[in-house]
């Protein structure tokens, strides 16, 4: 059998909350609104004929990017295996991180104001290597807390420091 994906398929991938879609859309919508206001000011106040064109182009780019970002959200996933955490992400540029629990130095749970508005939080694992990249956005707070506690417990049980 030929394998096409770098992401293992024999594990249970947990997905991020669908509310992350709305958060993403919301952020982009606010941006478009700002853009529109700026264009309107440029047009009516400064009578700059280029303003709506530039704004339109930017809006178009934003919308195109939004499509990719939205499709990318679906690719976020994480799997808790017995001894390590797998995190996957990416559509064009795909990535998979494997972080053994024993290597974990600390876990961050962050939730910005917008994230809180949508009831989301981000969990990030840190190891002694700066390059380790295990960030999981868009988790419901309960799930983030559960994950954090579980990771902390597992990390303690399997700790190995450097």
């Amino acid at each position: 059998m030929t394998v096409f994906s770098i992401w293992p398929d024999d594990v249970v991938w947990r997905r991020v909350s669908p509310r992350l879609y709305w958060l993403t859309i919301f952020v982009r919508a606010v941006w478009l609104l700002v853009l529109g206001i700026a264009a309107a000011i440029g047009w009516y106040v400064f009578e700059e004929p280029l303003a709506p064109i530039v704004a339109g182009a930017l809006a178009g780019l934003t919308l195109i990017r939004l499509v990719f970002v939205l499709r990318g959200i679906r690719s976020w996933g994480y799997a808790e295996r017995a001894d390590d955490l797998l995190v996957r992400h990416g559509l064009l540029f795909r990535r998979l991180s494997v972080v053994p629990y024993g290597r974990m130095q600390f876990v961050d749970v962050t939730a910005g104001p917008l994230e809180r508005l949508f009831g989301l939080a981000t969990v990030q694992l840190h190891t002694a290597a700066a390059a380790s990249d295990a960030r999981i956005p868009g988790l419901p707070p309960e799930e983030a807390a559960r994950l954090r506690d579980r990771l902390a417990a597992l990390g303690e049980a399997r700790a190995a420091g450097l």
Partner: protein
Amino acid sequence: MSEPTPPPSGAQPPPPAGAQSPPPAGAPVPPPAGAQPRPAATQPAPTPPAPGPAGAETEPRRRLHPLSPLLRGLRYLLLAIAAISWQGFRSLGPERWAMAVAAAAVLALVASLVSYLVTGYHVVGRELRVYEGLFFRRTRAIPVERLQSVELVQPVLARLFGLAELRLEVVGGAQTEAPLAYLTREEATALRRRLLDLAAAGRAAAPAVPSGVTAPGPADQAVRPAPAGAPVGAAAPAADVAGPSERLVHIVNNRDLFISQLLRPQWWLLPVAVAVPIIDALMDGQLGFFGIASTVTGVIGAISAPVRVLLGDWRFTLAQAADGLRIRRGLLETRSSTVPEGRIQSVLVEWPLLWRAYGWVRANMHVAGVRVEQQQQGRSSLLPVGTVDVAQEVVATALPGVVLRDIVIRPVPDRAKWFAPLRRRVLGYQLGPAAFASRDGLLTRRLMLVPYGRIQSVRIRQGPLQRRLRLATVYVDVAGGGQPGVAHHLDVAEARALALALAEYSRAARRSTAPATSPSAGPVDGAPESGPPASGAAESGTAATGASEPATREPATPEPGVSAPHASGPGAPGPDADGGSGRPEAPAGS
């Protein structure tokens, strides 16, 4: 030197009270850092387990050597003079210039004197405390468990007075933590031994391992007797260089070092650096101050790297002591650094193009937290130059269980040619018995070795083109800002299996690190069997030159035995890649 420091430390809260433990121990360290970690340990006869200082109560704080303000002041003074002269000599006139210099001298001296008076250190329990600062006072407590490496540096001037600076490296510091400059050589050596002994005593349950053979579990069948055995005999004649308890591994031949540094590409810039100003001068018809200055600058810029290596790695000596790997080097400024066992995060072996005629390689290591001045991609030298045989021995010492010659690189699929038409033949990896090896580099061939026990995390990345070709790249991260080991352009299935296997091996290696001392005692027994690498101490490169060429090739050429990698199941790249010794540590440890 151990007087209770009355005059300056009257200002200091800590423990001028001298040697009584109970009262100062409770109150001694107002700054938070000191007291927190193990307050319990400081109080009652702190070190019951520690072997050395039996009666180590809160010992009195010690001063640096009285000459150190002078020496350190001199350093600043030279800087100040340079700064003044740069702009000022002409505009100030000789008299006022002399006055300015004198003022700078007085300032430098006073500043150094003050810093001398307020600086002190002592060992409390299992940590070293360093006190410094006059206005912003700082007490830094460094637990010995956290030591990544200890370096004893003797700059030229300090060397004249028999003084040395002790540098302790821990992870996470922005620069060298707690440089103690200067102590007498004996003091510095004693302190180093004491700290390392403390660290070794605390490490696991194996304090008595004599020669540091605590290989991570898998080492048992991988460490060959030959490389390790030979130098045991060689250590005897060189006992004046190496301490009594050390096993000399290798002394780099200075002639080789010289030639090898001449063979670095930086020298090609030299003609340019010289020619440009001269041509410029010819065009102008005169050679002005500016022309000379730019020539000098250009020459220095062109050759500084090789010259620095030459000065810094002169008489490079690698030995294995009970407390770790010991490296001595330096022509003018001598350094002796000790890296406790298990602190080496990765080793990079390089075959520069110009060195291949001699069959030379060089090896660098990455130790978390160490910032090397003479920077080679942020790594400290492990072997500045040597034949492959020597490198094999050195690498086996640094990473027990890794046998350089046994590394057979597993090639990447043919379709990687779309990314790396030439490099494709070089790229590849091996899941060795004790370490992950990956190879890259067309002109300078680089073999990166990451021991399984040091892997922090594993990543796979895949770009859109790679996805089309069903390729992916695997990164193996190590601690402390080291470069990751990278295996480029693997088949997707293989990359996936590799990443999971690496995580698994890393876990297994870690689990087995602690109790795995006994089986690996093998190498020492091999002493009589002094194979070809016996030349370690005295060889001059000629003997092994012939043999080394195939060795450089050996990892370079895809072995016939491995050339059917795609057929092998994705689940097991290891075992068939290196002839059955692939996955020993998983079961061995637990």
